[in-house]
């Protein structure tokens, strides 16, 4: 029985549960009633049968006394034969006091009957099985027992009664079924349908986030109507809040977009400015450097010691400034230049960088360990800058070790490849690790290790442009490990 609209199909609807409950109660009551009535009827029927058999037996007995006493079997036989008018009687017999069958009547001569002796002192006794009952009644004449009358009867009437009961039960059950269905239908119309409509509407609200929907109001005036009204009120409130929220969000969004645009513009201007400044500074600085070099080569012998010393310092400062400007330009390019990914062999790149470093400072004792086949999909130029910065850092911070060790490797973690550059150099204080990647922030003094404080900031920017991450592990005097990923 389909009780639900096609859009909502809960596993078990209220009205089908009600129908089932109704039927369960009805069937239980019916079965119990049928059992009770049938048992009562069975007992009553047996009692009635026994009392009627008893009456018949008494009549037959008193009519047979003389026949018994005067040994007149024919008279006794005709008396017993009169019992044949009762359809249930299967047979009857008169048995003498010494247990001999005096005469007997059998409805079907081939069906013999047995006559158990009557218990001493009893005037009447009966034995019953599922299909028959045997009744014995003592024949008493003038206070003296003269024999016993037995009547055997079939209980075939019981079968008829059982069938009648079953038919009545079936009819009552059908009527109850129809009534239960009518009740369920009425219940569905007044209770289930409004609830289903409400549930359907709520489902739509949840699915479409459409808080303007309303359940059709019920004219029932009962709990269902209250429920629907409450839901509708709640929906109205949600709708109002949703509207307010959306307005606020839109407002905020537009403000954020505005500010972001402003910031972007300012940032772009700032970067353009710093790039321009760095680029434009480079020209005069190169001139200063070149002039210093010429002075050192051609006029050193015409200067006193103080002049030569100052000239050295001028050259060192101009070199340092040139490095700084290069780093700044790198940093700037890392943020602005277009990202072009291609297959890059990082192992080869690291090997090249190591070779360059060895050529610059061949006297240093540094052992390089570089994992082979570190292939990545990345911007070759930018990733070279990043890797060079990391390896140069390692080279720099192992400078105070008698034998340095620098490793470049990678490992797989989940779906990423994590690359790392590890050294056994000066390391850093892990508590200050968050300052490592900020521009112009340095954890070591210029006296310990020279540097601009821009390299790691550049690395972070390049890695960020690739959509990856960079982080570091280390401890003071125990080396450092820089990890990065290059996910797109």
């Amino acid at each position, binding site marked *: 029985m389909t009780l639900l609209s096609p859009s909502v199909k809960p596993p078990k609807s209220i009205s089908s549960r009600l129908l089932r409950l109704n039927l369960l109660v009805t069937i239980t009551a019916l079965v119990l009633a049928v059992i009770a009535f049938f048992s009562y009827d069975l007992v009553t029927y047996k009692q009635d049968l026994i009392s009627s058999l008893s009456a018949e037996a008494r009549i037959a007995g008193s009519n047979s*006394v*003389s*026949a018994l*006493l*005067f040994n007149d079997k024919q*008279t006794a036989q005709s008396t017993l034969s009169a019992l044949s008018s009762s359809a249930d009687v299967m047979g009857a017999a008169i048995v003498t006091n010494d247990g001999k069958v005096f005469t007997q009547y059998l409805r079907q001569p081939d069906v013999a009957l047995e006559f158990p002796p009557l218990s001493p002192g009893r005037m009447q006794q009966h034995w019953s099985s599922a299909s028959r009952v045997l009744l014995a009644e003592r024949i008493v004449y*003038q206070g003296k027992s003269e024999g016993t009358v037995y009547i055997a009867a079939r209980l075939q009437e019981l079968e008829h009664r059982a069938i009648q009961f079953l038919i009545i039960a079936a009819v009552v059950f059908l009527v109850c079924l129809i009534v239960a269905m009518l009740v369920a239908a009425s219940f569905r119309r007044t209770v289930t349908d409004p609830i289903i409509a409400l549930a359907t509407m709520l489902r739509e609200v949840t699915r479409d986030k459409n808080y303007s929907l309303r359940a059709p109001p019920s004219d029932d005036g009962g709990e269902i109507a209250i429920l629907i009204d409450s839901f509708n009120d709640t929906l109205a409130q949600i709708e109002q809040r949703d509207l307010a929220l959306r307005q606020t969000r839109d407002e905020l969004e537009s403000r954020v977009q505005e500010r972001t645009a402003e910031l972007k513009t300012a940032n772009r201007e700032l970067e353009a400015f710093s790039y321009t400044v760095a680029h434009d500074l480079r020209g005069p600085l190169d001139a200063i450097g070149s002039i210093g070099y010429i002075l050192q080569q051609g006029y050193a012998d015409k200067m006193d010691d103080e002049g030569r010393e100052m000239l050295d310092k001028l050259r060192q400062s101009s070199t340092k400034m040139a490095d700084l400007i290069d780093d700044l330009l790198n940093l700037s390019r890392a943020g602005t230049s277009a990202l072009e990914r291609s297959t890059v062999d990082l192992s080869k790149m690291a090997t090249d960088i190591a070779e360059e470093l060895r050529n610059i400072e061949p006297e240093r004792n540094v052992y390089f360990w570089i994992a082979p086949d570190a292939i990545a999909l990345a911007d070759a130029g930018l990733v070279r800058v990043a890797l060079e910065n990391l390896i140069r850092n390692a080279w720099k911070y192992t400078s105070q070790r008698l034998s340095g060790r620098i490793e470049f490797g990678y490992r797989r973690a989940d779906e990423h490849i994590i690359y790392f550059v590890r050294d056994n150099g000066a390391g850093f204080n892990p508590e200050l690790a968050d300052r490592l990647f900020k521009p112009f922030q340095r954890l070591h003094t210029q006296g310990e290790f020279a540097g601009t404080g821009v390299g790691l900031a550049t690395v972070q920017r390049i890695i960020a442009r690739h959509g990856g991450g960079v982080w570091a592990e280390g401890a003071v005097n125990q080396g450092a490990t820089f990890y990065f990923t290059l996910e797109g």
Partner: protein
Amino acid sequence: MAFNPSGLVNPETASPQLTGHCVPCFYCFCWFYCWVVGAIATQNGHPTQDDVEAAYLYNFGRFVEWPLIPSRKALDICVLGQNPFGGTLDRIVSKQRVNGLSLIVVGMKATHAIGSYVILFFGASEASHLDRNLSALNGLPVLTVSDLLGFIDHGGMIQFAMENDSVRLEVNLTAADKTDLIISSQLLKVTTHIIFGKLSEGATR
């Protein structure tokens, strides 16, 4: 069922053996025969005709009502003439009571005072003076019983008759009606022959 088509039993033709010189021989033979057959029958556990008749005599006491019964102290059964029952009748009635009264069997040869008994059995020896004895009882409430042939036609009340090897009863209700005796319809049911009114009728069963 055997049925006497005439409805009447002629005493003269019915009992020719009871007259003439050979009567004692016949009785001797009968007695011997009965004694032998009875002994054999009793040995086999089957009651003889006389045993059955003795039991019936007692049963008559239960199916017949006598007037003035409250004044009686016992039901007297008189066997007139030769007693065919021997001790059987005494044995049967000795422990029985009818309507609270005990039963007494009296054997008699003479016929005086026969009117004081309740049941009077005429033995075989009484055939010759049957009519005289019955007329002497005229109107007295005495149940007269015999196995003599034609007994009820002579005015006796109950006669034993053999039928299919069993003892059956014939009743003269007219004779009983002349006295105050009431014979139960139960008893009449088991009779094969009843005489009542002016005519005798066959059993109505």
